[in-house]
């Protein structure tokens, strides 16, 4: 790796980190609007409001930063960065095409899971440091939810690692073959659902339930720091969809022309999944806290243990 190459890799990762969440956000604006029989943003930028999120960003940068008198200032100010940066770091190991990966880490999958688990600190810090009851409740709910769904996520991911026999994300895509769609289908479902819950996306948005605890841990946030939390949510969607694609849907492999069209296949799968995320938000009511924990512990965890057994037996039988 020359110096220029390092710079290029970093630039590409940062560009993906800034651009893809915006695209997902815009997709959400428009898709959600049309599902609810309205138009969504139409004004900013002219053509179908394409510049809406950029305008939002410009607005957020100029907003006042209000720290409540009761808050712990330092922790309050640091929390958005803690919530955001893990997703940036994860993007570096995601392969988008054959050989097209910023960094092929041998332990890639485990690295991703470890780094993702750090972001829980962001919402706990935000919830506690606000000095607000609703924020604290939201922070605790958020932590409990993240903890509950981290487990099925990890188990489903390890099922794929078993199937592929490697932890390298590129290696997993290489080892993937279409019949895994059937073999690993439960793991796919578990991973995606648990991932949604990790991101507090509706229907798993109990921690930020606006009708009962205002906006959970983010209640007291204003201006750019609030925008950073929003960016973290959308970057999280990108990361979740990219990981699901890489682990379960064959990443850059498509019906034809993997070598040349790899990144295209990857992006198509990513955005289809992002659309599903939005679709689920529009079409499902929020789960209660007890239903959330029940779903995690009584459905997803036993199911993923079953999937692990299935994967192990099939794999050993095949060798």
């Amino acid at each position: 790796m020359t110096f220029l190459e390092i710079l290029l890799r970093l630039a590409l990762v940062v560009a993906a980190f800034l651009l893809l969440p915006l695209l997902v956000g815009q997709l959400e604006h428009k898709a959600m609007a049309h599902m609810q029989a309205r138009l969504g943003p139409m004004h900013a930028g002219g053509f179908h409001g394409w510049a809406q999120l950029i305008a939002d960003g410009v607005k957020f940068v100029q907003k006042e930063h209000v720290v409540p008198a009761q808050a712990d200032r330092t922790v309050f100010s640091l929390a958005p960065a803690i919530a955001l940066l893990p997703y940036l770091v994860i993007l570096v190991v995601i392969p988008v095409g054959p050989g097209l990966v910023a960094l092929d880490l041998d332990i890639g999958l485990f690295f991703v899971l470890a780094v993702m688990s750090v972001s829980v600190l962001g919402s706990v810090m935000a919830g506690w440091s606000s000095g607000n009851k609703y924020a604290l409740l939201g922070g605790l709910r958020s932590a409990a939810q993240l903890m509950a769904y981290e487990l099925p996520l990890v188990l489903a991911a390890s099922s794929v690692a078993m199937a592929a026999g490697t932890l390298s994300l590129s290696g997993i895509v290489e080892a993937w073959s279409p019949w895994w769609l059937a073999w690993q289908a439960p793991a796919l479902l578990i991973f995606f659902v648990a991932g949604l819950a990790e991101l507090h996306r509706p229907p798993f948005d109990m921690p930020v339930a606006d009708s009962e605890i205002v906006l959970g841990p983010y209640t007291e946030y204003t201006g750019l720091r609030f925008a950073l939390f929003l960016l973290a949510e959308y970057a999280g969607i990108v990361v979740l969809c990219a990981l699901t694609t890489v682990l379960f849907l064959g990443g850059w492999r498509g019906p034809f022309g993997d070598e040349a069209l790899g990144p295209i296949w990857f992006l198509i799968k990513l955005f289809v999944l992002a659309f599903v995320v939005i679709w689920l938000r529009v079409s499902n009511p929020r789960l209660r806290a007890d239903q959330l924990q029940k779903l995690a512990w009584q459905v997803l965890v036993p199911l993923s243990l079953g999937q692990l057994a299935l994967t192990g037996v099939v794999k050993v039988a095949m060798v």
Partner: protein
Amino acid sequence: MHGYFGAYGLIALLLVVGAVFVTVALTANRLLRPARPTPQKLLTYECGVDPVGGGWAQSYVRYYVFTFLYVVFAVDAVFLFPWATVFAAPGFGAATLIEMFVFLGFLAVGILYAWRKGVLSWA
């Protein structure tokens, strides 16, 4: 810059880039934003009425139990990953599979116990 240390060097560099991004954004924010704090503005938000009591809220111990459940299972899941990379290799195979299932079996008993004791459902 290559190999093991190169890889982690790149990750460290990326972290630095991320930190710089956040710092630059917040500095731009600091330069552009107004700052007119008033006592009302700095009050804790509580649905538009004056806040009652402190920032502490009574919460469930139950949340703690769920978190502890996760910790116990997470330390088990940790062993799944090194296992996943070797169990299909020659010289391991069925025996290693059974060893792992014994390990998982014990934990399954644990979750069954929690289930039977009603910890998993919110009474």
